[in-house]
C-alpha cells in the first residue's frame, strides 16, 4: 500500500508547500497595516498564522526559488504561474472561516450570565483556522483489501480530514460545555445563533458534543420535548434536542458536512444507547434531525482526543502506537514495591501486579488521528532537516514514509490485538 501511495506523495507535498507560501503571502498582507484600529479579528488570526508559517518560510524559500523573498509568489502559487483555482478556493475558505470564527466569538460575548468558556477553547479554535491553511499530506488512505476483510473499518470522513477531528472535538466539547445552565442565563435565539455558527465552523464535531451532553442528561429528564410541545426545561434555556436539530439543519445546508454527519451517525448505530435506559414509546429518545431509528453508540469524547495525543507522542518517538497502557507507570511501580515488601509473595500476588501491564488497543480513528498530529508537529523540523541534505525531497520522504509504515503497523497490530482481547 505504501508503494501505491508513494507516487502520489510528491505532487501533493509540493502543492502543500506551495500552499504554505501562498498562505504566508496573504497573511503578511493582512498584517501589513500597522494601525491598531485596523487590527480586525481576521487580521489577528492571520497574524498568528503568519507567525506559524514564518518558522518554515525561510527553508521553503530555498525550495521554491521562484518565490520572492517577501513571500509574494511570482505566479499565484509559485508552481503554477497561470494561477490555481484550488488555491483561490482555499484562500476564500480561510477568509470565510476567519469571519465565522469572529462571529462565534461575538455570539459568545452576547450571551448574558454565561459560564466563561475556558481560554483553551479559543486557542483550539485558532489552531483550527491555522490548520485550514495547512493542507495535509495523505498518509494513510483507505486500503480496500483490509476493508473487505473488515480489518480496518475506516469511515470516509476520517480518511478525508482526520487531523482536524480531535482538535475540533475538543473545541466543540468546550464550546458546548460553555453554555449557561442556570435559569435565565441566555436567550434561546442567542443560543440558536451560536449553534448555527459553531456547527458551520466545527462541523459534525459540534453536533456530537451536543449529543454527548444529550446522552449524559440526568435520568428522568426528558430532553426531547417533542411530546410536550417543545417546552423548555428549567435546567436548560433551550432543549438539547432542539439544539441538535439546529445543528443538523446547518450541516444539511452546508452539504458535505451533512453527508459526513449522516454517514457517521450510521457508523455509530447499534440499536441501543449504552448506559441509558431503552427508549420507550412515550419518551422521544432520538435527537431530532438524526436518522430515524438510529441512536448513538457514543459520541466522540475527550478520551478519544487524549488517545490520539498519546498515539502522536509514541509515533513521534518512532514507537508503535497500537495500544495504550491500562495503568500509569507510577501505579505499576508502587505495585512492584508492595511485592518486594511482602514476606510471603505468592504467584497470584505477582500476577495481580503484572495485570496492570495489560494494554488497551486504540481504535483505527485514534491511531490515524495520532498519525496526523505527529506529522503536523514534526513537519517543520523534518523539512528543516531535509533542506540540509543533498536531496531534500528524498530526505523528507523517508521521514514521512517511516511514519506511514509505523501508522500502518499500528493499525494492523491493533486489529489483531482487538481479536485477541475478545477472547479474554
Amino acid at each position, binding site marked *: 500500500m505504501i508503494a501505491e501511495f508513494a507516487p502520489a506523495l510528491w505532487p501533493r507535498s509540493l502543492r502543500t508547500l506551495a500552499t504554505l507560501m501562498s498562505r504566508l503571502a496573504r497573511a503578511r498582507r493582512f498584517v501589513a497595516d500597522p494601525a491598531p484600529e485596523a487590527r480586525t479579528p481576521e487580521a489577528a488570526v492571520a497574524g498568528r498564522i503568519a507567525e506559524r508559517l514564518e518558522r518554515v518560510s525561510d527553508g521553503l524559500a530555498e525550495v521554491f526559488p521562484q518565490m520572492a523573498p517577501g513571500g509574494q509568489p511570482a505566479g499565484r502559487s509559485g508552481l503554477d504561474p497561470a494561477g490555481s483555482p484550488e488555491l483561490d478556493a482555499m484562500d476564500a475558505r480561510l477568509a470565510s472561516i476567519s469571519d465565522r470564527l469572529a462571529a462565534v466569538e461575538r455570539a459568545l460575548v452576547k450571551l448574558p450570565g454565561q459560564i466563561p468558556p475556558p481560554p483553551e477553547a479559543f486557542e483550539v479554535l485558532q489552531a483550527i483556522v491555522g490548520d485550514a491553511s495547512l493542507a495535509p499530506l495523505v498518509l494513510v488512505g483507505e486500503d480496500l483489501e483490509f476493508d473487505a476483510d473488515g480489518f480496518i473499518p475506516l469511515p470516509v470522513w476520517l480518511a478525508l480530514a482526520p487531523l482536524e477531528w480531535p482538535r475540533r472535538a475538543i473545541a466543540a466539547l468546550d464550546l458546548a460545555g460553555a453554555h449557561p445552565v442556570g435559569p435565565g442565563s441566555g436567550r434561546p435565539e442567542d443560543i440558536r445563533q451560536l449553534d448555527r455558527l459553531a456547527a458551520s465552523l466545527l462541523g459534525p464535531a459540534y453536533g456530537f458534543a451536543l449529543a454527548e451532553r444529550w446522552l449524559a442528561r440526568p435520568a428522568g429528564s426528558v430532553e426531547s420535548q417533542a411530546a410536550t410541545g417543545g417546552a423548555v426545561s428549567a435546567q436548560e434555556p433551550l432543549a438539547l434536542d432542539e439544539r441538535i436539530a439546529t445543528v443538523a439543519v446547518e450541516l444539511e445546508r452546508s452539504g458535505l458536512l451533512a453527508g459526513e454527519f449522516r454517514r457517521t451517525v450510521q457508523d455509530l448505530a447499534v440499536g441501543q444507547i449504552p448506559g441509558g435506559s431503552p427508549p420507550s414509546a412515550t419518551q422521544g429518545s432520538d435527537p431530532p434531525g438524526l436518522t430515524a431509528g438510529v441512536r448513538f453508540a457514543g459520541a466522540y469524547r475527550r478520551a478519544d482526543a487524549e488517545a490520539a495525543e498519546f498515539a502522536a507522542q509514541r509515533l513521534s518517538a518512532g514507537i508503535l502506537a497500537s495500544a495504550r497502557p491500562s495503568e500509569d507507570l507510577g501505579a505499576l511501580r508502587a505495585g512492584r514495591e508492595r511485592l518486594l515488601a511482602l514476606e510471603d509473595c505468592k504467584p497470584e500476588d505477582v*500476577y495481580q501486579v503484572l495485570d496492570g501491564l495489560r494494554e488497551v488497543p486504540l481504535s483505527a480513528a485514534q491511531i490515524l488521528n495520532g498519525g496526523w498530529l505527529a506529522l503536523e508537529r514534526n513537519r517543520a523540523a523534518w523539512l528543516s532537516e531535509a533542506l540540509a541534505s543533498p536531496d531534500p525531497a528524498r530526505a523528507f520522504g523517508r521521514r514521512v514514509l517511516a511514519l506511514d509504515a509505523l501508522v500502518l*503497523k499500528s493499525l*494492523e*497490530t491493533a486489529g489483531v*490485538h482487538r481479536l*485477541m482481547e475478545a477472547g479474554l
Partner: protein
Amino acid sequence: MILNELELLDRLTDPDPGRRVIITPIVNPREQFGPTSVDIRLGTDFKVVDVANVAFLDPTAGPASDQAPLMRSYRVPPERAFILHPGEFALAASMEFVRVPADISVRVEGRSSWGRLGLLIHATAGFVDPGFAGSITFELHNVSRVPIALYPGVRIAQLCFFAGNPTRLPYDQKTYTKYSGKTGAYESNYHLDPEYETIRRHRRAPGPAGR
C-alpha cells in the same frame, strides 16, 4: 544477569526513558510473562522467497543481489492463517514492537509447544543488540513433515532479557546498522555489508588477481 519478572517490571516502568524497556502491545500479561521471559506473538507480515525467479543468491552481484524484488509478501488478516509447508522457509515479524536500552540485550527463543511440532522460529539470528528498536524478525522453518497453520496473534517465541554494562555502540547508532526501527518482515540486506564491496572492487581491479 538474566532479568526475572520483577526486574523486568522495573525496567518496563522505569521513569527514565533511556533505561526503559518497551514491549508493546502487551495483550495479556498472565499468558505472556514467565519467570525469566516474555512471550511474543506472530504479526501479520510474512515474506517468502519467490524461488521461481531466483537462480542463486550472490551478494557480490551489486544491486541485482537485492532480495527485495525476489520476495513475495503476504499480509494475513486476523482469523486467517499463513500455511508453512514442510521444508519451507519464511520471514515474519513479531506483533510486538520492542525497544531495549543500551545496557540490555535480548535472546529470542522458541516455545517448546512449537518446537515439538517441528517449527523453528529463527535460523541463526536469535540475538537482539542493546539499543535495538523495532519488530523482532522470525526466520520460520518447518522441519516437520506436515504443513503448519500460523495465525497472527499467537504466541510463537519468547524474549529473555540480559542486563549488563551500558554499551557505547548501541545498535541504532552503529555505522552499518541495517534493520534498526523496522516494523515488518524485512528481507536480508546482506549485500550491503561492506566486505562485498571490497570483493567487487577487487574483481574489477586489473592484474593477475583480478578477473
